[in-house]
């Protein structure tokens, strides 16, 4: 780019500004940064909102194949994840006690798991003491129903919403819409996803799969207050969101949030955020409802030191997120007049029941594992078919759904992993994600053993008699050299039969030697034992 290039944001005259914008679009199109449809004012197709937020219907291998072909998404995801990983590594390296924080975090969350019922009761007591209401929900449907009832009792039909993964998990917006209540997303990325009738592709940066030009096009078409002439500079786009949402914040009577942590011994909730929409939603409207997963709890305020230091650095590669809000119950003249906490199970008690998977409840939803995953880098979030994508998604989604039938797409998630351990390295809470995934593969295999047949299970079945007999192994081993006929340059690149050719679609088998080991040993043994 030449030095004379001015950002269109700073051009006052609308005609000149539009000219400059068009120039930039043309160049981007030429450079392959945007596709023709985006250059024409549209955006890459959205993922339609599914019936089940945890299972969108396609098995991972199929979805991955499709997503790999989407050039725009691949470009966007690769760029974004590389940026964030670089920053995260830098920020983690800055702290001399990073490993100690991880270990302390793990120890603290293990304690939380072991004492969960008591901590939840303590939390409930303290929230009520401070003038808040507490409700319990076994599943997402119940939670949505309770929330809707609360809003309706105040004649609220419009609420402002802070980004919350739990609300994604239970299809909160859609369920509330059915009850005649419109939930406005106020997090910039969630707003982008909502305006595009799309699904999120990441738990921290949900619109990672969109580039700035797509966002510009989206705002131009779907934000009523967006200016006629609009560049795709992120700063200008953020300004559009700011103006659009300020009006909502000041006028909505109802609000919704999740929480990063509940603090049991004071009945407090804490939200870490960057934009200030969390502060807006938990301060301005009169009625605040928060749905929080039962695992999102810490015993005492002191634990803020642990999560507060791990979260920002892991999630966005910054030392600290701009805004953190801590509140407890209600206060006179400051914040909402009425506060309701809904404690949600929705399968978390099942996860606690599993001695290997229960560490997944330690997750603070930072997304570092997702950013580190080489598979995610290539396919992006939509390939996983769950609002929880990547490593953590593949760990918790099958457990939350809790049906290991072979035909369910959700059970392909644990196989969307190369076991490279990058996620384990990156996890600030020291969760052994690969261990959970391998155990899931075991569970799925065991569940389907005996009543599911495919080439793989048949192949394994017929290998058993051969492998359990020395003489049979020797017999087949001596015949293996026949495969050499299929070898080229010392490798078998393609097996002929459909049943097994899939194996060689992704692997080469080294050509077997002319002699199997037993034959070789027999020969050389006779020659002397050196």
């Amino acid at each position: 780019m030449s030095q004379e290039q001015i950002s269109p944001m700073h051009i006052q005259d609308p005609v000149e500004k539009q000219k400059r914008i068009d120039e930039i679009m043309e160049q981007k199109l030429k450079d392959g940064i945007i596709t023709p449809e985006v250059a024409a004012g549209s955006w890459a197709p959205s993922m339609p909102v599914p019936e089940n937020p945890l299972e969108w219907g396609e098995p991972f291998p199929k979805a991955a194949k499709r997503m790999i072909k989407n050039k725009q998404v691949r470009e966007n995801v690769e760029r974004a994840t590389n940026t964030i990983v670089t920053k995260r590594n830098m920020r983690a390296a800055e702290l001399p006690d990073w490993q100690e924080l991880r270990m302390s975090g793990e120890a603290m969350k293990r304690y939380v798991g072991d004492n969960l019922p008591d901590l939840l009761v303590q939390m409930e007591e303290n929230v009520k003491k401070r003038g808040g209401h507490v409700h319990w929900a076994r599943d997402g449907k119940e939670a949505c129903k309770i929330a809707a009832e609360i809003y309706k009792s105040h004649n609220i039909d419009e609420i402002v919403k802070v980004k919350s993964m739990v609300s994604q998990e239970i299809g909160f917006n859609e369920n509330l819409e059915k009850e005649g209540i419109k939930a406005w997303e106020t997090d910039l990325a969630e707003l982008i996803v909502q305006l595009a009738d799309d699904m999120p592709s990441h738990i921290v940066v949900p619109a990672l799969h969109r580039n700035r030009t797509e966002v510009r096009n989206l705002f131009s078409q779907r934000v009523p207050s967006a200016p006629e002439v609009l560049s795709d500079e992120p700063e200008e786009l953020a300004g559009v969101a700011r103006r659009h949402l300020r009006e909502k914040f000041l006028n909505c009577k109802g609000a919704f949030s999740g929480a990063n942590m509940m603090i049991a011994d004071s009945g407090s909730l804490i939200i870490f955020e960057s934009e200030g929409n969390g502060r807006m939603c938990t301060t301005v409207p009169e009625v605040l409802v928060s749905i929080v997963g039962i695992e999102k709890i810490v015993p005492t305020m002191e634990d803020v030191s642990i999560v507060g230091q791990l979260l920002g650095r892991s999630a966005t590669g910054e030392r600290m997120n701009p805004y953190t809000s801590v509140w407890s119950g209600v206060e006179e003249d400051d914040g909402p007049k009425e506060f309701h906490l809904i404690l949600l199970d929705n399968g978390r008690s099942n996860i606690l029941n599993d001695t290997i998977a229960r560490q997944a409840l330690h997750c603070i939803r930072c997304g570092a594992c997702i950013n580190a995953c080489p598979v995610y880098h290539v396919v992006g979030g939509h390939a996983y078919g769950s609002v929880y994508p990547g490593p953590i998604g593949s760990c918790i989604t099958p457990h939350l759904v809790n049906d290991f039938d072979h035909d369910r797409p959700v059970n392909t998630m644990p196989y969307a992993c190369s076991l490279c351990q990058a996620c384990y390295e990156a996890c600030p809470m020291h969760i052994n994600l690969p261990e959970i995934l391998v155990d899931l593969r075991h569970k799925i295999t065991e569940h389907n053993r005996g009543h599911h047949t495919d080439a793989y299970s048949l192949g394994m079945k017929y290998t058993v008699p051969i492998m359990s007999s020395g003489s049979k192994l020797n017999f087949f081993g001596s015949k293996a050299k026949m495969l050499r006929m299929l070898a080229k340059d010392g490798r078998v690149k393609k097996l002929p039969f459909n049943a097994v050719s899939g194996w060689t679609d992704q692997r080469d088998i080294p050509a077997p030697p002319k002699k199997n080991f037993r034959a070789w040993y027999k020969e050389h043994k006779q020659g002397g034992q050196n």
Partner: protein
Amino acid sequence: MIDTSAARNEILTKLRGVLADQGITPGEGKAALKPERTYRQSGEPAGSPQVLEMFKDCLEDYDALYVEVDLAEDPQAIEKTLNKMLQDDAIQTAVVPHGLQDSWKEAVSSACTMTVDGPGQRVSNQDLNATNAVVTSSLAGIALTGAIILNNQPDQGRKTCTLLPDYHYIVVNAQRVFHTVPEAVALMCKHPERTYTWSAGPSATADIEMVRVRGVHGPRFLRVIVVKNAPVQED
């Protein structure tokens, strides 16, 4: 009246059951052992030159304006600095919490039109939205991260007041600028039931292509006055 006691009982019973299956009873034996904290609990002395230097770097990294004054050199330093900053920023209207020090209030009201927010005289949200600036004291600062902690006590004020105006002037006692996060959290632990807001730089987002941009919701301009040799208020 919503009654979720059935769900409550079911969830708690289930949780106790799964733990019992693992041989765990909450609050007893192994489960009662407090988890170990092996991370760093403190660092360099609060308010020391290295710590203030670190604080300054972090704040400036976030595009906040950092000014250091010393009451030993000039007892009127805070008032003079506030007054000058408000004028430099061409502030027309400012809101202050009712418990803000009187001399600071004077410094503000002589630079612009000041409104006091307090019990019986709450500024409406619409009016706050139209106000240029807010001036508050603070609880503490964290040098490692550039965070400033506010509670909503009389000298720091209601949450809405520090949220809606575009310029936020914060006075921070140098002796309450800690090196590490645990030291500042220890202060919060004295009153864990209170409302707190941590501000580590102005509102920002990196949601579009991971490019960090400023000012989505919340004050876009942060002006921090760190004061040396000021008395520390015990809470």
